């Protein structure tokens, strides 16, 4: 039996025509445990308009879904809200198949698409706030620079009050259902946070500006259609609240303890630190790096108040897995964390110094000197680790008394 790929009507005259990627687990280094979707939308106005394309290999899926509504050659306009290749990968093929009258992108999108596809694509740049007449409806464009890339913009369809928000408010979650209220809340909340943590965390300043622009626009939003994951029909107010909270670096009495170990000594230290954190009333999340993915560490750090990092010394360096996570976290620019470094060593013992410098580079306020243990922790060493955990817990209790 061949599977029939059809469009899904999401509002009057608006169809989801995207692709479902059930298989992807590595999205440029982000562990997409539940797959993802590349959403694209077809507006059946007098000027038939396609909002965004999909990742290259899903070209045929996109075209099949469009064809279930209309002959693709009837599409007049294509709008590229975001030029990243998960949304533009097959744009040249779509343009060749459809031969649209025009392709629209932001001014930065015009540049970026040119730098992706070179001579291959004829694009018209639009201004912030520009309105495109679709005959019996209107589409407005709003620049949302750096949410996610310099080219990012969102489009708003006035008739049915639909916002096409590209990466904003999205998540990596493959599902047969298209709407938020058809899915389980918990995995959805988790994937929303994971997406924000891994894709949007460093962009707090532009996100605040974009949120102010949307909420201050006076427009009503009946439906929010992001480029990944479910369409928001019921829970958008909650999503907006979470975005405001995350862009404001909301933190809690949670401490993330990240470490790797060679001969179990740094692991024992992590365990003693966890003990100190827990007895001090902090919530401890322990993440051994031989089994924790960097993108899950980022998700835990999103609302954490503290970050404790442990590494043994190997060949005068910190452990490569720990260096990986520190490099990644520094790029995500979490603001307002406290923390500390710890680790065991055999003879040279550089790791804690290197970690302390890495925490400085992340602007993490270190609440104590690193705890450094030779070979195997003694009872006193374990006590020092417990005390470090307790110190962090006390600081968190002072900073966030009512955010357990």
């Amino acid at each position: 039996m061949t599977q029939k790929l059809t469009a899904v009507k999401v509002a009057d005259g608006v169809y989801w025509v995207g692709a479902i990627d059930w298989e992807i687990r590595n999205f440029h280094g982000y562990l997409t445990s539940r797959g993802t979707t590349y959403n694209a939308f077809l507006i059946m106005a007098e000027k038939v308009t396609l909002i965004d394309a999909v990742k290259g290999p899903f070209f045929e899926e996109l075209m099949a879904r469009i064809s279930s509504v209309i002959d693709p050659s009837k599409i007049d306009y294509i709008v590229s809200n975001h030029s990243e290749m998960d949304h533009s990968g097959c744009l040249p093929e779509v343009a060749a198949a459809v031969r649209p009258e025009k392709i629209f992108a932001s001014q930065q999108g015009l540049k970026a698409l040119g730098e992706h596809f070179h001579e291959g694509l004829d694009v018209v740049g639009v201004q912030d706030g520009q309105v495109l007449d679709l005959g019996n409806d209107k589409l407005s464009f709003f620049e949302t620079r750096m949410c996610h890339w310099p080219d990012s913009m969102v489009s708003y369809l006035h008739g049915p009050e639909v916002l096409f928000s590209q990466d904003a408010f999205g998540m990596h979650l493959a599902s047969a259902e298209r709407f938020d209220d058809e899915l389980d809340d918990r995995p959805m909340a988790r994937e929303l946070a994971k997406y924000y943590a891994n894709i949007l965390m460093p962009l707090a300043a532009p996100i605040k500006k974009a949120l102010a622009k949307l909420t201050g626009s006076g427009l009503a939003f009946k439906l929010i259609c992001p480029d990944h994951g479910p369409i928001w029909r019921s829970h958008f107010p909650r999503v907006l609240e979470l975005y405001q909270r995350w862009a404001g670096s909301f933190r809690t009495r949670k401490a993330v303890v990240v470490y790797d170990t060679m001969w179990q000594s740094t692991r024992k230290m992590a365990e003693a630190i966890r003990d100190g954190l827990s007895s001090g009333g902090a919530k401890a999340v322990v993440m051994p790096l031989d089994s924790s993915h960097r993108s899950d560490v980022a998700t835990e750090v999103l609302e954490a108040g503290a970050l404790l990092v442990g590494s043994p010394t190997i060949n005068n360096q910190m452990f490569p897995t720990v260096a990986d996570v520190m490099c990644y976290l520094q790029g995500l620019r979490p603001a307002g964390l406290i923390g500390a470094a710890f680790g065991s060593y055999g003879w040279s013992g550089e790791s804690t110094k290197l970690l302390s410098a890495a925490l400085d580079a992340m602007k993490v306020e270190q609440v104590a000197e690193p705890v450094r243990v030779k070979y195997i922790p003694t009872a006193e060493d374990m006590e020092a680790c417990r005390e470090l955990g307790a110190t962090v817990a006390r600081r968190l209790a002072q900073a966030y008394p009512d955010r357990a």
Partner: protein
Amino acid sequence: MQKFVCDACGYIYDPEQGDPDNGVEPGTAFADVPADWVCPDCGVGKDEFSPA
């Protein structure tokens, strides 16, 4: 005072507003912005800015 634009992302540094969230007072000319200041939107250094 001369505004400067980030070549990477399009952020505009306006001396009249400065960047108070990152310790740059309103009224600071671009030349007087600390050398380790980075674009608040995309993180690139001062050397990637051009006169707007």
